[in-house]
């Protein structure tokens, strides 16, 4: 039980509990909070793995921007507790079992994966950020440009969608 393993288990438990809480809670805000917990836990895991840049970005963008946006929208729409309608028979009956089956499939597929996955790894923090940045701006520059364009379009779309039509 090395300290890393202990930290991992703590964070993993945090993440799973957060995810469960997201499902259990009936008010969007609480779901959002639990999701934030999950994200912070994941950030911790990234740190544990030694990819600190991704961890930071995870918190800054996900925690600081996206989730804030969610909370903001929830506050804006003043969303109440969600009502438990059961209109969709299919989802009511088949939904959960199917999801569980999916989960089982994934877990099994990983569990029986080859040994290389079973082995642990040394977290390589050295020059990680620099490496990522060079790769991002050399090998992946076109995808990068594309994503920035995507962002632009998304901003425009959001503005167009959310503005009240002038009458």
């Amino acid at each position: 039980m090395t300290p890393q393993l202990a930290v991992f288990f703590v964070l993993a438990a945090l993440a799973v509990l957060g995810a469960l809480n997201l499902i259990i809670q009936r008010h969007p805000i609480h779901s959002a909070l639990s999701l934030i917990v999950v994200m912070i836990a994941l950030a911790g895991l990234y740190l544990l793995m030694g990819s600190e840049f991704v961890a930071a970005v995870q918190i800054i963008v996900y925690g600081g921007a996206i989730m804030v946006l969610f909370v903001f929208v929830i506050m804006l729409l003043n969303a109440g507790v969600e009502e438990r309608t059961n209109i969709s028979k299919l989802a009511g009956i088949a939904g959960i079992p199917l999801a569980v089956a999916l989960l089982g499939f994934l877990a099994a597929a990983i569990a029986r994966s080859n040994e290389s996955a079973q082995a642990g790894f040394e977290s390589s923090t050295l020059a990680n950020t620099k490496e990522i940045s060079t790769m991002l701006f050399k090998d992946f520059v076109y995808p990068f440009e594309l994503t920035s364009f995507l962002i632009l379009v998304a901003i425009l779309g959001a503005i167009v969608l959310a503005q009240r039509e002038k009458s």
Partner: protein
Amino acid sequence: MISFLNANATIIIYLVKIALLLFIVLTVNAYLTWFERKVVAHMQSRWGPHRVGPHGLLQPLADGAKFLLKEDPTPAGVDKFTYFLAPLMALALALTSIAIIPFGPQPLHLFGRDITLGIADLNIGILALFAITALSVYGVALAGWSSNSKYPLLGGLRSSAQMVSYELSLTMSVVGVLLLAGSFNLRDIINAQAHHPERGIFGWNVWPQILGFFCFFVAAVAETNRVPFDLPEAESELVAGFHTEYASFKFAMFFIAEYTSMITVSCLCTIMFFGGWLSPFPASWTFTHYLPSVILIPFGLWVIWDGIRYETIFGRIILPGVGSAITAMGAVLIAFPTVNEFIQGPFWLLAKIFVFLFVYVWMRGTLPRFRYDQLMSFGWKLLLPVSIANVVITAFAILMWGAR
């Protein structure tokens, strides 16, 4: 006992450092309020607090006692969990962010161990700091939402919107500095400004990054919800904004959080743009090393003199004591050159931080508040473009003639 200490010294040292830092920060917070009130008062040609203790020096203690002892009602229909979570989050995050600031160049040599000034020395320091500030939105937003009242809700909405929008330019404005330093680590950033020791003040980032500094400072002020960006708590329109429904100690938490983040921002400004602990004078001017004592001793003497002719007996007793203590400190610095050398860094750092805190207060005293739409359009239409332009220009300059 000793063996136990040796066994897990690092942990103990960390604990001690944390405790010490917490104590210092909280005290500074307290006296920052006093300082603010005094300064603003003098700006408005008032006396400010002067009843409690000489020059009202004990006022912060009184306030603290009041916060602790007041009744703490929980409004009806609030969302309990969130209602309690919000102030905690705010305070915790604010205090955490301090932990990343390094306070001095060389470690303190004590008990045969090197004790670095500053708690966490991450090599993504600035990023971590931003991560924490990013999270600090929740404190405000959740507080506004959970107190189940319309003014707080509006305040929360405003503040979350404002913080998210200014966070962008905050981050962007720093990128220039990061490009110059080539690292996220705060120490590296400071050292990067010491490339040319002879330039002294002219080696600091503030000159090449004047735009960045402007953007950073404005955005930082907005992040901390201070005047002129204190819309979330605009008394005239929103009673007290997001913490309207909070009383006594929960309110105190928000309060402390705000002042702590003020300190953090000042530290950041100092480190990013004003060379952190670097002396403004060329390194060769060794005589400037006596500047701390040159400042301290006269100040102490002035305090003694002022104390002797103070109205109240209490003052006549306290002030001379404090004054002589300060004078003694100056004398010690002259007496022990090693200590003097060691004190240089922290001295300059603290001095600059003090200046920034003063600027904060100054703005509070002078500037009017923005209107909300002005705030938004300013943030999105001026600040963000300028900071991005700054990034582009810096990158271009570095590419052209490796401006390091």
